[in-house]
């Protein structure tokens, strides 16, 4: 099993990347003879982000903005049942159509995005605040506390998240607050492990040792020397985790274990779209949230992946 320190250490990933360039040891020798570092990997990482990346950024931006401004936007009440417009296709009055109770699908879609986004971003924020801080310190300080925390995080991660979440939600009750807290807590050990590994690799670097010998305090070293270096991995991993949490929330909602109806969320909208023969009578109910979910996940993953390439982090078990 590859050591996660190696997977995350940007320095060794640079080496791996160099190795992945065309050629064998013989080529390397030839290239080495000309200059010590190949300029090639720099070229690779400075590759422009490209159209798709900016498209993804825009899409996430639009979704975020509409979720925040949902109350201000000229949208109907997502729960208003217009009995004169049942199960309609897209039209001028209802851009995405209506469901079998005459509710406006666009409005439900926009309001539903709030659940996914709150769970995704707030969950990761909880994970970052607790797990990230612990990982940063634990990786830098090492010692017994580090050993204990590390072992503990392993045990927590051995738990299949979905089962844990379902069990807890069952006994504690399904609300947006509960689900965000539970998923946030589940994120803590993940964040801890990734940031600890990264922090650990930097704690042993020369510049940190140099800062130590110059008498810098531990706090200063962690904040000034280690934190800035850990940020690339953190940002990349956080994005991937946001996508992961959105999937888990969607799964829960699809199973009817997330926010209670009639409050819309993408997961329960998809579920509604599959219930009562709706797939054959009105596939739009399912299609819009499914499409939105696909595009959102795709965008977040793409942004994360492009940043990973730019930051030169090896694609491992991140």
């Amino acid at each position, binding site marked *: 099993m590859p050591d996660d320190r190696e997977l995350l250490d940007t320095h060794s990933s640079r080496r791996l990347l160099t190795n992945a360039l065309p*050629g*064998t040891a*013989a080529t390397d020798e*030839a290239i080495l003879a*000309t200059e010590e570092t190949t300029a090639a990997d720099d070229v690779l990482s400075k590759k422009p982000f490209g159209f798709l990346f900016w498209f993804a950024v825009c899409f996430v931006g639009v979704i975020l903005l509409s979720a925040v401004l949902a109350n201000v936007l000229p949208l109907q009440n997502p729960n208003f049942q217009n009995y004169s417009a049942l199960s309609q296709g897209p039209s001028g009055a209802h851009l995405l159509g209506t469901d079998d109770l005459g509710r406006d699908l666009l409005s439900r879609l926009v309001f539903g995005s709030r659940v996914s986004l709150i769970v995704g971003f707030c969950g990761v924020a909880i994970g970052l605040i607790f797990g990230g801080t612990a990982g940063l310190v634990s990786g830098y300080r090492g010692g017994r506390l580090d050993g204990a925390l590390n072992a503990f995080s392993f045990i927590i991660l051995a738990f299949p998240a979905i089962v844990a979440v379902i069990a807890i939600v069952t006994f504690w009750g399904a609300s947006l607050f509960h689900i965000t807290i539970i998923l946030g807590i589940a994120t803590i050990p993940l964040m801890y492990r990734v940031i600890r590994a990264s922090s650990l690799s930097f704690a042993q670097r020369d510049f940190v040792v140099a800062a130590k010998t110059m008498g810098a305090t531990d706090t200063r070293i962690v904040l000034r020397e280690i934190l800035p270096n850990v940020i690339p991995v953190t940002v990349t991993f956080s994005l991937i985790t946001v996508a992961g949490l959105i999937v888990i929330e969607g799964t829960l909602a699809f199973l009817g274990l997330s926010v209670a109806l009639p409050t819309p969320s993408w997961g329960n909208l998809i579920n509604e779209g599959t219930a009562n023969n709706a797939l054959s009578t009105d596939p739009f109910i399912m299609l819009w949230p499914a499409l939105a979910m696909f595009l959102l996940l795709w965008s977040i993953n793409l942004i994360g992946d492009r940043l990973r390439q730019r930051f030169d982090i090896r694609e491992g078990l991140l």
Partner: protein
Amino acid sequence: MARTKGGASNTLQFRDAGTHEGPLLVVEDLHTSFRTQRGTVRAVDGVSFEVQEGKTLGIVGESGSGKTVLSRSIMGLLPPRDVIRSGTVHFAGHELTAMDDTSLREVWGAELSMIFQDPMTALNPVKRIGDQICESLALHLGMDRKEARSTAVELLRSVGIPSPEQRVRWYPFQLSGGMRQRVMIAIALACAPRLVMADEPTTGLDVTVQAQILDLLADLQRERHMAVILVTHDLGVVASRADDIIVMYAGRIVERAPTRTLFHDTKMPYTRALMDSIPRLADPSGARLNAIGGRPPDLINPPTGCRFSPRCPYAQDKCRELEPPLRTVGSPDHLFACWFPLVDGMSTAPAVPVTVSSGPAAARSAVENGQAPAPAEPTGEAEA
């Protein structure tokens, strides 16, 4: 030669060709370059030589001189992508450079095989060593499992691995460095090839183990009457083992001679410098290694004139402007590329060198030594 599909008959045809006349390997004007982001790296730049059946040729040069690329280029092992190769290689009368991969595979491992520099990386880490030997036997000699297995045991025994019956089941990481290199030799020799390319076969090993491995290789060579190309950065390694030696610098041959001649009548200052960088047991223990000053040249934009001129203590204006051809003086089998070749270890350059671009220290030490240009600058590039 154009070879088409239909492996078996071609293999026989190839084996029959063993009766051909002339040298076993003929390399003519071989060029090999790599396309990189920065430009084209000319790793091998117009190399020609021959190897006779059963003989040993040493190819010597610093790292980056193109010797490793040369050996892989001869075999055709370089990845096709971003590699440009021209010139011809004839092996046992067949033109390797004209063959496609399918035909080459019948030659590789069977007639022409390779020993790699680092057995730790060149042996598959997750395959038992026995399986790694049997593979070639099954492929080229058509042995069945049992036959291949017992042959593998014999091979391991012949390369001096104790209790080979057990060791065939071992993985590379369970063996010591020297043992691993013996396994590699066993693999290379499994199908009794006629030519073995050994690329720095002893670089990673202890000095005592180095000698054992080289002696083993020499013994096996004598037994099996195969030719060996010994690629190394260490003239000491080939001094007593090669029949002929080629010295390479920046992708070119700079001197080529029978071993005795090369050592007794060195023409090229670079060769001289290489010789002086061999540590001797007789040296006082604190003595500094005579490393060659400066760095190997950039192969994307090689220096004009003689490529060694920026580092050569005897370099003249002519050296920096005009590239010396490979030529002979007297003996026809001693070739060198130098405008002012050494005679009895003394330079024939018109003036005592004072203006050397690689640094005054180099020049001074050359003067003080009185005979050999051996810049004493201790650099990281020194390969001890």
